[in-house]
């Protein structure tokens, strides 16, 4: 499994890390429960062994990774799925980037939801999350659509998304980047 987690220099493809970021690791392939466990254990060990990351920051990064990776398990029927963990010392942040295929029909809704989340304040975000928690509705995966709200909250709204053409008919590549600050000096 660990051979599949590649340490690499940043690739500059459209759906990848920002220029100047250093990739801590990346994985591309089908995400299954075991894959998720290995990657999360890897991230946790990395964070715990990094003295520059405080425990509260480490917990935020780990929680964001959990949400992103577990989302990929549910949307990862093909090898077009990927996860990248990177850092930018110049911008004092860690980034988590997930990529997966989405239906073209679903993509507009997804981007609209993200745009809406990005425009609201932290307090409004908390209220929205509370109202989703209170609601009995569940998504197919049990979270009731709270994953994006949680990611927005953990990153103080520092999330970006991008849709790119995919080789598959009626599909687009959905790239979601979550930036978490600060890396403690």
């Amino acid at each position, binding site marked *: 499994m660990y051979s599949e987690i590649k340490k690499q220099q940043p690739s500059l493809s459209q759906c990848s890390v920002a220029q100047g970021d250093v990739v801590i690791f990346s994985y591309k392939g089908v995400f299954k429960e075991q894959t*998720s466990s290995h990657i999360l254990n890897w991230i946790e060990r990395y964070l715990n062994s990094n003295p520059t990351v405080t425990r*509260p920051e480490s917990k935020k990064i780990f*929680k964001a990774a959990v*949400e992103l990776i577990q989302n990929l398990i549910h949307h990862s029927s093909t090898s077009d799925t990927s996860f990248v963990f990177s850092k930018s010392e110049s911008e004092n942040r860690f980034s988590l980037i997930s990529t997966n295929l989405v239906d073209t029909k679903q993509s507009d809704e997804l981007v609209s939801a993200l745009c809406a989340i990005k425009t609201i304040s932290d307090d409004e975000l908390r209220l929205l999350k509370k109202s989703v*928690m209170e609601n009995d509705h*569940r998504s197919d995966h*049990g*979270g009731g659509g709270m994953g994006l709200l949680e990611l927005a909250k953990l990153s103080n709204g520092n999330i970006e998304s991008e849709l790119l053409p995919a080789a598959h008919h009626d599909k687009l590549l959905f790239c979601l980047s979550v930036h978490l600050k600060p890396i403690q000096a």
Partner: protein
Amino acid sequence: MDNIIIPGTSKTPEVSFIVEARTLNLSGRSIPENSIEFYSSLISWTDTLCNSEGVVEVNINLEYFNTSSSKCLMDLLKRIESSNVEAHVNWYYEEDDEDMLEAGEDYDAIIDLPFKLIITGG
């Protein structure tokens, strides 16, 4: 009705639900892919316990939980709330963990049960 004792794992919490003491203890982390599967038996157990008289104590001392688990925790607490049994919740959070403190405050605001937010050393 038997006690439920489940050791914690890297993804699921340590569970100690004790009939005689009427206590529900969850600690560690709750980040399973399928939270509904994990929590369904705990929720059923809670329903049964709440059909009998006596004060119920809930202790939630989680380091992490995913959004799917947060809905399950909400279900569990709502079942206790709607049963009208006397109950109180102790919500533990690590010092400096503002996210976990906020989560406790949010559950407290939604669930009509006495809540204590208790700081731990981390």
